[in-house]
């Protein structure tokens, strides 16, 4: 039986986390390959619905990462993002969408090692939680007859 390999989608900002992930590579640090990275100009650009759409497309876990507060390339994008994440997390929690499957982090362009650590930790955590079937089932409406 093949072991479950989580599918993780990462929403990252271009200036810090994406550059940081680059550094992880150039530093030849080995880390889990389960993550698909989506690059945004800034975490402030990340629409909260995108996270749900990722779950709907079969993601088992999500990483959202950007510049540290006060270091945003656009000055305040990550401050707005932080508030948004706080509110969205509360809503997801109320709705029963598993917030343990979303890892938020601040990873700077110099933190190549931290990125690897975030990815590895998240992959392990999701592997323990198992595949995320609840949301995908609801999103899998195309596979079943529409309800009356």
């Amino acid at each position: 039986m093949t072991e479950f390999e989580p599918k993780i989608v990462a929403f990252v900002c271009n200036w810090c986390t994406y550059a940081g992930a680059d550094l992880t590579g150039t530093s030849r640090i080995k880390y889990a390959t389960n993550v698909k990275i989506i690059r945004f100009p800034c975490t402030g650009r990340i629409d909260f619905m995108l996270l749900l759409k990722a779950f709907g497309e079969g993601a088992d876990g999500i990483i959202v990462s950007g510049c540290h507060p006060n270091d945003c390339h656009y000055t305040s994008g990550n401050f707005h993002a932080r508030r948004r994440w706080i509110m969205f997390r509360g809503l997801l929690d109320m709705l029963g969408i598993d917030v343990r499957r979303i890892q938020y982090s601040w990873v700077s362009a110099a933190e190549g090692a931290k990125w690897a650590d975030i990815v590895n930790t998240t992959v392990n955590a999701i592997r323990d939680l198992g595949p995320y079937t609840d949301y995908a089932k609801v999103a899998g409406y195309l596979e079943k007859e529409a309800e009356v």
Partner: protein
Amino acid sequence: MQTENYTIRKASLEKLFNNLVEKGKTVYAPKAKGKVVLFENVERFDEITEDYIVTTNSAKSVVFPRVEEVFSYKKTKEKTEISDASANSFPDVVLWGSRPCDAAAFIPLTNTFNRDYTDIIYNKRFEKILILTFSCSKCDEYCFCTSVNSGTGNTAGSDILFTKLSTGDFLAEVITEKGKLLVEENSSLFEAKPAESKEQNLANVKTYFNHEEVQSKLQNLFENPVWDEKSRACLGCGSCAFVCPVCSCFDIQDESHGGNGSRLRCWDSCGFSLFTLHTSGHNPRETQGARWRQRILHKFLYMPDQSKVAGCVGCGRCSRACPADINILDTVTSL
């Protein structure tokens, strides 16, 4: 066929229900859910509530679901497979507990889906439904079925109409061949017709207007200020159209997911501000008044005129559900 009358005892009614469920029919009956009474799939007789004048939503979802797949496709490297819903077969459905107004609504609904296009999916669903209506022993100020050529004991559209008698047993009027078949399959449950008359057990709904008169008046009221006045409080949601048993406007939504996709038919409402928005940006019904006018004209003039069917069955659901309390009876009587 000639209507055939029987008596069915209260206990036998429950047995009839159980027989239907045992036979594997999907039964939709009124179920109480907090503030509302909805037609839901039930499997036990005790799930059915008798405490309703009309249900909050209509029964039209049995033939016109709120979301329905019209076709779906699957793309592979070699080909694209299309599966058309009109080739599907649909389950046997029993509608238990519709009111005479609900049953009468299937007539204009069937007309709409066959008028200038034969809707195979609708027809296939309609063929498979058995409509078991219960006449009304009470009514309220929202009801106006008698003003639209219907009534609390109207049999139009029903396969069997049950009327509760003072004894607690029911008169069963078998209207159609489908109804007759049900009686034959459950013959032990149906006894000789009762002595008691149906009429004494029906609620009396006041007649508020004459349908033909309204129809004729509406021909000359297009530019009248009544439309703006009566719809000023309208919020432009879809509640009235969605709870209405006759309304059948729909939107087509294409949803795709990689190489798979579906075309879905979903309920739509002429009350939405963008209902008639053209791609050019022009909206012929730009004001809520124009949209309210369209709703009334469609139901009380265009449908009777062009299709010779009632556009409204007087159930009052729209007025009951409206968050702004726009009352259709109020508008029609003020014309």
